[in-house]
């Protein structure tokens, strides 16, 4: 039946898996680094910089990922910057991710009592040290559920890179479907792959949350 024909193409689909993973981790990673930076600026920087950071966050959050991808892939060449599809996709996912992660981290930071920062400064730490050694460790534990959720979103949205021709599993599945003239089987197949990935992520996140939980420190989730 259809199934035996499809099994020949499974390797083709799986060839897309490395890119899916690279896009997800790369994009989320960029989002983590720059999102934390943005959050720091929005909370601790002087008013004009904080407002600018806030504006950047809001603008990015209000833009669909597909639009960001097209701006990066089709628009940037007009300014002289040309990226290949994979890098463009990673950057796009990263840009979107950093805006959402910034919001999540900001929320976590603001749920930490002001007294913590005061105490840190009182023992002579600079703002940067206080942030790094006192605020960040606590904020991250609180932010874990939100950040993991964002990673799941980034992972699923790697499929949008189909629009710029990245060979991740969704693109591969569609190509196979067009060849064997059966969309159902390839789509269900990658659906299962996505499910396995997202469920694994949520199990790991529960493990992380429990492992790094501090008694008395609440958090969302």
């Amino acid at each position: 039946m259809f199934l035996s024909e499809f099994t020949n193409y499974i390797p083709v689909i799986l060839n897309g898996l490395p890119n899916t993973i690279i896009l997800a981790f790369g994009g989320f990673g960029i989002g983590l680094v720059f999102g934390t930076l943005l959050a720091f600026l929005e909370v601790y920087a002087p008013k004009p910089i904080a407002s600018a950071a806030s504006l950047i966050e809001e603008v990015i959050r209000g833009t669909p990922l597909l639009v960001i991808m097209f701006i990066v892939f089709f628009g940037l060449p007009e300014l002289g910057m040309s990226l290949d599809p994979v890098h463009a996709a990673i950057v796009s996912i990263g840009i979107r991710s950093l805006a959402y992660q910034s919001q999540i981290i900001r929320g976590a930071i603001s749920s930490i009592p002001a007294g913590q920062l005061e105490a840190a400064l009182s023992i002579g730490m600079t703002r940067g040290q206080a942030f790094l050694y006192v605020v960040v460790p606590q904020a991250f534990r609180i932010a874990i559920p939100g950040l993991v959720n964002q990673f799941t979103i980034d992972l699923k949205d790697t499929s949008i890179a189909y629009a710029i021709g990245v060979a991740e599993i969704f693109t591969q599945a569609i190509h196979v479907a067009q060849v064997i003239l059966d969309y159902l089987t390839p789509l269900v197949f990658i659906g299962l792959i996505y499910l396995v990935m997202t469920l694994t992520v949520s199990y790991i996140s529960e493990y992380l949350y429990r492992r790094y939980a501090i008694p008395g420190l609440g958090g969302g989730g």
Partner: protein
Amino acid sequence: MSFMERVIEVVYNYSPMFLEGLKNTLVLTATSFIMGFVFGALIAVGRVYGPRPLRLILASYVELIRGTPMLLQLFLVYYALPRIGIILDPLIAAFLGMGLNSAAYQSEYLRSSIKAVPRGQWEAALSIGMTRWQAITSIVMPIALRSSIPALTNELVYLLKYSSIAYFLTVVELVYAGKIIGAETFAYLEIYTIIAIIYLTLSLIITRTMKNIEKRVMIPGLITPSARM
């Protein structure tokens, strides 16, 4: 020609195409939100008040949707349904897929709002002789819906942005319109900047409107979680 000049030129020459895209974007957003709301509410009620087998089926549905990309769900609706004889217009397939997706997410928000309604309200409703259905519709839901407004607003804005996925189904929404204009002018940066601004304006309008609605239906003493996450 400078960037701004090109932008103005594109808008001037192609406004009908932008409007066509805008129209379809709004149609997709509205229809999928409504569909998601109706089915989401039913799923939420089913998961809170229904028998165990029903709860399991509904929970599986929600997990399935949340664990897979929306793009995949749209493709399944549009390309796989023909296998069983259902052939759909791209726009219909798009909002159907988005609606089924939204139903899963809205059901989660509504479910937590329903569970947050104090148990005493439910007991009092039963005590004056209401049936379970009357208690759900007259007492629990009016309270739960009010406290869901912030989360539902978020969902509406999400749908606005994710309507862009209908691009893949060749629906002429904003992004597809941009592609068409781009094919003629190659002014990609200008076009997608304009489109980004349109999306931003729309989300601002939506959030502002929902805040107003929230103010109008708010009841003194009803604590709603206005913190957005």
